[in-house]
């Protein structure tokens, strides 16, 4: 066993154990906990037995284990980008709504009749 394997294999197993405990305590949802536990256990296994990754890759019709990891990393990366873009968009919509509400409530007119008109329009403002 190389130094790389000796360090990373137990580290991944430790993370898998922590995730499992957190899932059992309810800090993570069951589905999320299961996915992460399987991911870390698989990572530990493939680090400890790298040739098995090549076997899986060949079984999937991909020549090398390294290529399988690369494809998986690219797909996972894209998935993460889309997930966080979706979260960013939802937050942006929320913040925009708050800023818009504040802006509409503080509308001012360059003329002198501003304040009375402001009170009149308060009840008509759209709710976000």
């Amino acid at each position: 066993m190389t130094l790389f394997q000796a360090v990373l294999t137990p580290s991944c197993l430790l993370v898998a154990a922590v995730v499992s405990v957190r899932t059992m305590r309810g800090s993570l949802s069951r589905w999320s906990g299961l996915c992460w536990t399987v991911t870390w256990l698989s990572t530990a296994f493939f680090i400890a037995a790298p040739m098995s990754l090549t076997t899986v890759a060949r079984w999937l019709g991909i020549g090398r284990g390294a290529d399988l990891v690369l494809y998986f990393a690219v797909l996972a990366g894209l998935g993460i980008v889309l997930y966080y873009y979706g979260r960013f968009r939802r937050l942006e919509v929320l913040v925009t709504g708050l800023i818009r509400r504040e802006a509409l409530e503080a509308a001012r007119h360059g003329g002198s009749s501003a304040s009375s008109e402001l009170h009149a329009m308060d009840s008509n403002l759209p709710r976000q």
Partner: protein
Amino acid sequence: MNRGTSRGLEDTAKEVALASSGDETWVIVPAFNEGTRILRVLDELTAVVANVVVVDDGSEDDTGFHVLTRPVWLVTHPANLGQGAAIQTGIDFALARGAAYVVTFDADGQHRPQDIPVLVSSLQRNEADFALGSRFLGSATGMPISRHILLKLAVLVTRVLSGVKLTDAHNGLRAMTRGGAASLQIRHNRMEHASEIIDQIRHCGRKYIEVPVQIRYTADTLAKGQRMSDAIGLGLRMLLRRVVR
């Protein structure tokens, strides 16, 4: 303002009054750091229409201060959100004030107030909900060739992604009826709003027409215009928007 222009604006004001019973038309001017040129635009606009709302989109200069020296409404975003967000804020404000027609108008002075009554009367004549200004049906003085190519590319992209055939897909001068404005819900804050509006018009099945307008390109207006790099980013965001909603 010279006398000829003044006479032109007075005539236009009469046309607006005829076209939309005067007080029914609201003009939305989204502005970001326009302190040096907003007054010229507002002076031209207020000679033509009674109801103007400037949406100061978190400007870092004295845009808001200048706006309040004119008889127009000022709505201020506490932070910069983008032109799309500013237009939606303006639409919400105008609808709350009882607007029958809503017009969007850029703050950089590239649009002519004289085109507003033409757009509004086109809505009435054609029973349409949206009148979209087109510089390619009208004219564009001083337009650089690079801008021409960029805008034609935008037309092509809009046609491919939205399936809507327009001659000018990114013109900030547009008019809409109250119903049309109420049907819009611009969710993309930045420059994607132009294509988003077109998407929503098509999705809601609203009737739209293109109306010839004149765009004035000057060193001022070109200084803050879209560059090729902006256009590429815009195209990518439009694509991403179709994947993640």
